[in-house]
C-alpha cells in the first residue's frame, strides 16, 4: 500500500506530472537559461566585478606595504636625526671647551705680555730718568763751576790777580771731582 502510493506520487498523474517526472522541455529551458545567463554574466558582471575586487585588494596591499615602508623610512630618519643631534651637541660642547682653553691661554699670554711690556716701560723710564739725572748733574756741575768761578772772580778781582786765583780754584775743583 505504501509502495503503490509512492509510485502514484512519483510517476503520476494529472496535470504537470509526478514528482520524479523529467520533462525534456524543462531541461532544454534550463540549459538555455543557464548558459545564456552564464555567458551574459561572465561578460558584463563577473569580469568587471572580479577585476575590481582584485584591483582593490592589490591597492590595499600596496597601500599597506607603502605605509610600512614610509614608517620604516621615517623611523630611520628620526634615528638619524637623533644621532646627528647627539653628535652636534657633542661637537658644540667640544668647540666650547676648545674655545675656552684657547681663551684661557690667550688671556694668560696677554697678561704675561702686558706685564713684560709694563716692566720694559718702567725699566726704560728708569733708565731715562737715570740718564736725565746724570745729564742734569753734569750740567749742574758746569754751571756751579761757572757760578763759583764768576763769584770767586768777583771776590778775588777785588784783591788778587785773576790768573793766580783761577789756578787755586781749579785745583780745588779737581779735588772735588776726585771725591
Amino acid at each position, binding site marked *: 500500500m505504501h509502495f503503490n502510493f509512492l509510485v502514484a506520487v512519483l510517476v503520476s498523474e494529472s*496535470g504537470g506530472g509526478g*514528482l520524479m517526472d523529467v*520533462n525534456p522541455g524543462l531541461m532544454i529551458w534550463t540549459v538555455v537559461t543557464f548558459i545564456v545567463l552564464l555567458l551574459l554574466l561572465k561578460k558584463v558582471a563577473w569580469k568587471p566585478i572580479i577585476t575590481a575586487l582584485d584591483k582593490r585588494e592589490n591597492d590595499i596591499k600596496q597601500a599597506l606595504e607603502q605605509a610600512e615602508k614610509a614608517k620604516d623610512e621615517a623611523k630611520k630618519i628620526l634615528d638619524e636625526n637623533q644621532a646627528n643631534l647627539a653628535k652636534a651637541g657633542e661637537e658644540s660642547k667640544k668647540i666650547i671647551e676648545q674655545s675656552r682653553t684657547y681663551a684661557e691661554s690667550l688671556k694668560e699670554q696677554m697678561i704675561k705680555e702686558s706685564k713684560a711690556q709694563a716692566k720694559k716701560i718702567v725699566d726704560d723710564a728708569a733708565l731715562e730718568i737715570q740718564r736725565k739725572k746724570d745729564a742734569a748733574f753734569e750740567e749742574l756741575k758746569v754751571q756751579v763751576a761757572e757760578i763759583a768761578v764768576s763769584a770767586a772772580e768777583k771776590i778775588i778781582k777785588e784783591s788778587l790777580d785773576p790768573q793766580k786765583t783761577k789756578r787755586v780754584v781749579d785745583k780745588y775743583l779737581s779735588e772735588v771731582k776726585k771725591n
Partner: protein
Amino acid sequence: MAVSSKIDTLAVPVDTLQKSGAPDSDWIMHHIVDGREIELPFLGYVHIPQFPLVFGIDITPTKHVVFMLIAAILVFITFLSIARNYKKSVIPRRLANFFEIFIIFVRDEIAEPTLGKNYHKFLPYLLTLFFFILFGNFLGLIPFSATFTSNIAVTSTLALLSFLMIQLGGIRHNGFFGYFKGLVPHGIPVWLLPLMIPVEVLGLFTKPIALAIRLFANMIAGHIVILALIGLIFFMGTIFIAPISVAFAVFIYLLEILVALLQAYIFTMLTSLFIGMAVHQEH
C-alpha cells in the same frame, strides 16, 4: 539508499493524509510539482499557452520555467547593477556591499581552496551556479511562487552541466588520454584493473547524480512538510490544531531559509571540489 529513505520520509505525512480521507494527493502535489498554470495572488490562475513542438519535444514553458526565467532575470539585473557600481568606483555600495560577501565567499572559500592557483577559469561558472541556485531557492520561499530548484529535471540538468564542466576541466588540464588514465589510481596491481575501471567510471556518474538528488530532495522536503502541517488543520477538522501547525510550519520555513542558502553552497562547493579532483588527479 539515502534517496529512498528521503522519499520515505516525504511519503509518511502524505500517506497519513490519504488515510484520513483525502481523495488523493493532488492538493499537495499541485503546489510542488510543475504545471501549466501560474497562480497570481487574488487574481486567479494564468494558463500558459501551448507552444509548437520542436524536434518532437514539447517546449511549452511551465510554471518552473517561468520562475526560472524570473530568477535568471533577477540575477542578471542584480549583478549588472553591481558591476556598474564597481566600474564607477572600487567602493562597494548598498547591494554591491551585500553581494560582495557572497562573491568573495565563493572565490576564497569555495573556488580557491578546491581549485588551487588557476581557479579564475572556473570562477564565472561557479558564481553563476551559486547565485542561480540561491535566487531560485529563495524565490521558492515567496508565497504563490514555485521552487524550480525542487524539480528533478532542473537539478539533473544543472548536475549534467556540472558533470560536463568537471570532465572538460579534467581533460583540458591533463589531456584526453591523461585524464582517463589518471582516473585509476597509480600503483594498482594489474589484476585489480577489471574491478577498478568500472568502479571509477561509475564514480564519475554518481557524483552528478548525487548533486541532482541532493538539491532536489532538500528543496522539496521542506515544502511538503509545510503543506502537510497546514493540511493537518483541515483533515483534523478542528481549529485547535492550527497554532501547533502554524508554529511548526514557521519553524520549517525558517529551516528552509537555512537550507536554501546551504544547498546553493553545497552544490557549488561539491562542483568545485569535483572539478578540483579532476584537474589535480594526483590527490
